[in-house]
């Protein structure tokens, strides 16, 4: 089946009509979900992930507390209807455990855990639809959910997947493409341009790897713009809601306008 699909056709278009470096449309919904302190519903094309963040709060399990920093707890659930084939995965599934531990270790150095000793930050991830780039969607969603929860972060983490079709790098792969070409996920901290996460699971030549890494790194910065816009919009909305009461609201409104740098945003 896979050989019938043209990953990249003569005209330079991919199976879903995108160009090589074109990302799928991203929608971000930061409205509160239930009792979560912060939540984000993010879609990359048909991939959809809901992330809820609780905390920092007192740890349920006493022995899990750390005396000098907060404990980050990540739980991932995969909805059985998220893929084409319905398959139940238990909580003990190694793939999901690894997925969760990847996300946990990605965020541990970025969250300023030292500000909340003896507490716990819970991150619950629900994968609602899968169509490639699931790990990047989860990471981006978690970044946004942590920001909406007001958890202090050193930087965004913007993650994107990339692949190589013969010698052409592609970005933001769908399931169809992921099954056929080697894929790399790269998580970038846009402010410093450093890489937090690199994950490659299929065979790929070193030279190609470098190429796709650099392209994905650039794309991470583009994604950052998109994510920042969503956060600013939400913050702007909050400020507007408060604006009628305090004069500070008006001053705050100027901030989320067109200014640059994330420092202002952190102030709210």
């Amino acid at each position, binding site marked *: 089946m896979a050989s019938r699909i043209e990953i990249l056709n003569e005209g330079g278009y991919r199976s879903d009509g995108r160009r090589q470096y074109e990302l799928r449309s991203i929608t971000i919904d930061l409205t509160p979900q239930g009792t979560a302190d912060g939540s984000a519903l993010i879609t990359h094309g048909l991939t959809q992930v809901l992330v809820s963040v609780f905390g920092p709060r007192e740890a349920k399990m006493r022995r899990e507390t750390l005396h000098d920093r907060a404990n980050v707890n990540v739980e991932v659930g995969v909805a059985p209807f998220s893929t084409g084939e319905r398959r139940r995965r238990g909580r*003990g599934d*190694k*793939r999901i*455990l*690894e997925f969760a*531990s*990847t996300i*946990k*270790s*990605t*965020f*541990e*150095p970025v969250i300023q855990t030292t500000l909340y000793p003896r507490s716990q930050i819970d991150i619950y991830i629900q994968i609602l639809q899968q169509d490639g780039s699931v790990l990047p969607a989860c990471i981006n969603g978690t970044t946004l959910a942590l920001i909406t929860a007001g958890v202090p972060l050193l930087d965004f983490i913007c993650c994107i997947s990339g692949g190589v079709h013969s010698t052409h790098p592609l970005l933001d792969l769908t399931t169809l493409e992921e099954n056929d070409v080697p894929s*790399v996920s790269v998580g970038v*901290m846009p402010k*410093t*341009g*450093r*890489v*937090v*996460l*690199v*994950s*490659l*699971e*299929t*065979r*790929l*030549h*070193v*030279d190609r*790897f*470098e190429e796709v*890494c*650099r392209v994905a*790194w650039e794309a991470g910065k583009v994604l950052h713009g998109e994510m920042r816009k969503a956060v600013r919009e939400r913050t702007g909305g909050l400020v507007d809601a408060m604006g009628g009461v305090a004069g500070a609201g008006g001053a705050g409104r100027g901030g989320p306008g067109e200014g640059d740098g994330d420092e202002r945003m952190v102030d709210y």
Partner: protein
Amino acid sequence: MRPPSPSIPEREFLFTALKQSLRLDGRSPLEMRTPSLIFGPEFGWVECSLGKTRVIASVDGKMVKPPPERPFEGIITIQSEISPMASSEYEVGRTSDEEVTLTRILDKILRRSDVVDKESLCILAGQRVWQLRLTIHCLADAGNLLDCACLAGIVALKHFRRPEVEVIGDEVTVHAATERAPLPLSLHHTPFCLTFALFPESTSSTSSTSTPVIITILDPSLLEYRLATGFLHVAMNAQRELCVVQKAGGVPLALDQLLPLIKDVAVTKVRELDAFVESRMKDDWEGRRKLVEVS
């Protein structure tokens, strides 16, 4: 029971030494411990050690009925539970984080990167295929269990030989080793795993530099493994093909710090490892041939 984390003097000592590019066991930062391979009397049994880290890998094969969705492919299973034998850190029945990483990375390197040609393991389509079981026993954990386990696993697969099978019509005949020489598996490539441990140089008071130096060491020992703030696992073969790159969290690295590690360091180290494994396999094979000739 998790042993207490290393003491502050130990940590300070290690960090100061690393800043001067010195390691506690006298290696240079990007030097591996010399691996040693001991082959057992049977095919597919190998004991691999990196310093005091020791792992036994053994392969055995049996014939099974393939699952209906893949009637032409053999089955490979990898068993890699870490028992308390390796270190008092590991408990029975509870999957530790290390075990999850070990199992998953071994799975990616040895199974999902198509090391073994699965279709060559088919005997009779839909009826009989070979099921290979690779068992990894971790005997001692003195740091970098993953690289050792991966080396042991791949060498065991290279060393293994399966009995020749003859198919006439629907009848399957298995020939004993005394009748016909057993066949090696057909392997597409031989990946090796390398682990880099990352240490940020943040303990120094000069934080004014915009790009803090990050100390990278290859093949961490147990103390280095405990104190490292991040790891980079790279699996690649001698043909410069990457199979797995995994860097989850830990110290953020600039792309220009990360890529040279893979492009230059890992490539040369993997070539050396490949040559080493080839020569050891050849020696072992020579030894076996002599045995047969005498008797």
